[in-house]
């Protein structure tokens, strides 16, 4: 072995690495990039472990992406004094999580299920595999994974560059101007301004996204492509089996003293038209409430939440989410008989 000066080499490596990473971090912060937490298995599992909190202190939310944007968690927690446990997953049906909670004998809490018909009444939802992976991860979480999660939380809270979805090396490479290969999905098609995620697992659009119609149109185009490529909706026995499995799961939770409520969160423009035409309310939403014998909140039934114009047709901006959440809490209190930790008579701001 030739005697290389490892000490000098090591010091140089540490200096170069620190300078490069700190410069990158400063550049991102100066560009206005917010801190965002990776919405991965570890974060989901952290929330999943909280579902055993007393039912009068916490509400569990499951669904697809809409409720992740539309329910503003700080507003809910400030207004009700109760904790929100957000278990919804982007691009997924809530049914795998519903089955997981139904099969967990220790879960007896309050559950709100967001229904986006396209994913709820389907067997082939794009990211269901990710949801199943999250559930499996939660069940097999090791002590070392829990400890690593805590360290990661501290680091992610401090460093913007630790956003895997947009600033990992792979995401940066994907930003290169390489033409797409015909018939192959590549990379994340959503603009990063659409995607920040809080530690509570609330998704939100940045102010730039809300102000920039070209970014909004980029996302609208994705929904449009989804509509063009969509398979016909399920009917007949395939659809019946979904209703009966949901009924079965809901009954399990109710039998243990849990409460279940469905919500149809807002969509607007051509997307809402498409959804109501493809999934007529009477055949899907109304039937769901009837079959499961659960209360429901359909946004169009309530003037305070009926007329939102979603920036990209499908999700609410953060400002809209605050209004929506306050309206939702009022409906729950006044119409559905839900009580929260904070005094019932306290006005909701």
């Amino acid at each position: 072995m030739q005697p290389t000066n490892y000490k000098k080499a090591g010091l140089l490596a540490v200096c170069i690495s620190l300078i490069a990473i700190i410069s990158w971090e400063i550049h991102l912060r100066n560009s206005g990039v917010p801190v965002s937490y990776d919405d991965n298995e570890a974060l989901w599992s952290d929330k999943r472990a909280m579902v055993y909190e007393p039912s009068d202190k916490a509400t569990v939310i499951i669904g697809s992406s809409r409720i992740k944007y539309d329910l503003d968690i700080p507003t809910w927690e400030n207004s009700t004094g109760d904790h929100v446990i957000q278990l919804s997953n982007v691009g997924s049906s809530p049914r795998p999580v519903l089955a997981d909670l139904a099969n967990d004998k220790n879960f007896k809490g309050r559950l709100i299920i967001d229904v986006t018909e396209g994913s709820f009444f389907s067997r082939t939802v794009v990211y269901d595999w990710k949801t199943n992976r999250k559930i499996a991860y939660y069940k097999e979480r090791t002590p070392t994974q829990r400890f690593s999660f805590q360290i990661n939380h501290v680091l992610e809270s401090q460093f913007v560059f630790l956003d895997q979805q947009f600033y990992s090396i792979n995401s940066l490479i994907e930003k290169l101007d390489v033409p797409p290969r015909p018939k192959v999905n590549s990379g994340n098609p959503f603009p990063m301004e659409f995607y920040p995620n809080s530690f509570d697992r609330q998704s939100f659009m940045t102010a730039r996204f809300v102000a920039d119609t070209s970014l909004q149109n980029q996302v609208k185009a994705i929904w449009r492509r989804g509509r063009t490529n969509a398979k016909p909706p399920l009917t007949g026995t395939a659809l019946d089996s979904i209703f009966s499995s949901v009924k079965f799961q809901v009954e399990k939770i109710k039998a243990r003293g849990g409460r279940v409520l469905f919500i149809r969160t807002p969509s607007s423009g051509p997307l809402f038209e498409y959804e109501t035409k493809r999934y007529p309310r009477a055949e899907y939403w109304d039937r769901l409430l009837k079959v499961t014998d659960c209360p429901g909140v359909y946004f169009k039934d309530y003037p305070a939440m009926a007329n939102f114009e979603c920036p990209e047709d499908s999700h609410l901006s953060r400002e809209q989410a605050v209004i929506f959440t306050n309206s939702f809490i009022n409906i729950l209190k006044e119409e559905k008989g839900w009580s929260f930790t904070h005094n019932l008579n306290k006005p909701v701001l």
Partner: protein
Amino acid sequence: MLFNSYTFLVFFAVVLILHNLPFSWKTKKINLLLASYVFYAAWNPPFILLLWLSTLVDYFVGRALYTQENKHKKKLLLVISLIGNLGMLCFFKYGGFILENFTSLVNALGVDYHPAKPNIILPAGISFYTFTTLCYTIDMYRKESKPVKTLLDFSLFVTFFPHLVAGPIVRPPQLVPQFETPRKASQQQLLQGLFLLTLGLFMKVFLADGMLSESANSVFSSHDVLKTLDAWMGVLAFSGQIFFDFAGYSSCAIGAALCLGFILPQNFLFPYAAVGFTDFWRRWHITLSSWLRDYLYIPLGGNRLGKYRTYFNLMVTMLLGGLWHGAKWTFVAWGALHGLYLWIEKAFRDARRKKSLPALAIVESKNNFIKSSFAPSFTKPVEGSFPPETNHPKTVTNFFLALCTFFLVNVTWVFFRAEDFTSAWRLLHSMFVRNDSGTAVLAYLDIAKVSIIIVILVIAHWLMRNTMVLNVAGKMSWWLLGIVWSVMLILIMLSQNASSSFIYFQF
């Protein structure tokens, strides 16, 4: 605990500090042992009981085997050890597989038998630590080395955290003597260890997980007939992924041990520059192939019992080597294919030898003759001269032969990675039969990443085939080494794939 986790960074920092405090050597060894148990229990605490059981049984049986003079009693003790170790391995690793095949067999015979599917969790690293303890008891039986003096040293030999979960598979003479005298890494060793840790993490986090795993997963999880380009790119991606994943783990293990002042054996020596399959097995998972040679191939008779028996022994060794990797027939097929390649190579070599040396009355020592037919000889740990028999000159012909070997190795990886034979055949069909209507699953960027990395990988292996990483690093100027080191650190931090498991953990 994974090397590529934040938990390990904290754990390792604590272990390093404790190891460098002025405690007695015995206290330091107890610290290392406790740390190793924490390292293992951090995955699934109850399975540490298995580790304790295996350690205790083999320590006492090993001692008894060494001192016992009665042949029958000695054999009985060996059988107890084999049943204990292999029984545990069979139950946890092969229980479901055996039951499934037994059910298929009796069903085929017309018996209506449908048992419930067992839900057995495979304890991490059981295949590795079982082989570690097995070689100890077999060595004691053969009196090839002396019994470990204390239970503390033996426990540490079995459990020492750098090698515990995925090797390198160590032999008692390689590690136990290092526990007998106080050891502390020199500054050079500490820095070399940290360099190897960085290199290992770079291979795992950036190259295997960041650059190659998605392409491999897309291709191997596809249920369609693929375009030939996609099929090949997926297989090449897996070829790179499994090397970077496992060699990355081995580098981390060797580096972590070196930081503490211990030397573990090399496990990989640029295998994709192998010229032929004998050479490949001297370079790929060296500690497993030498284990199989010494504790399976040679006891079966090696090449002492005639030509056909040699071929038979080779194939049995490779089949069991395949099965060691997992309880699936596809792993057996992978082993069989390697066995077949070794047969063909041996046949060519024998024919050539016969031609050039008609009187094959070469006087070779018995052991050399046995070893020359299969697998590596022991390599010196970390540093040292390269084994002469692997030192093929870097000629154009040998490079072409190395490329042929790499091509054939890729074919074997199809069976290794595929879920079942249907998927394997479908992928092989996509690779070798042009199909313009096949499905494309990889983006241009994925194809570019795989192509660039694999070309660099093969060239780097070829250029470095007769040396070792630390030799190359040692010859660099300090500033160049510093730049290379920093690039690896930056890419690890930017990869952000900190939590995915190593492929070999499942074995």
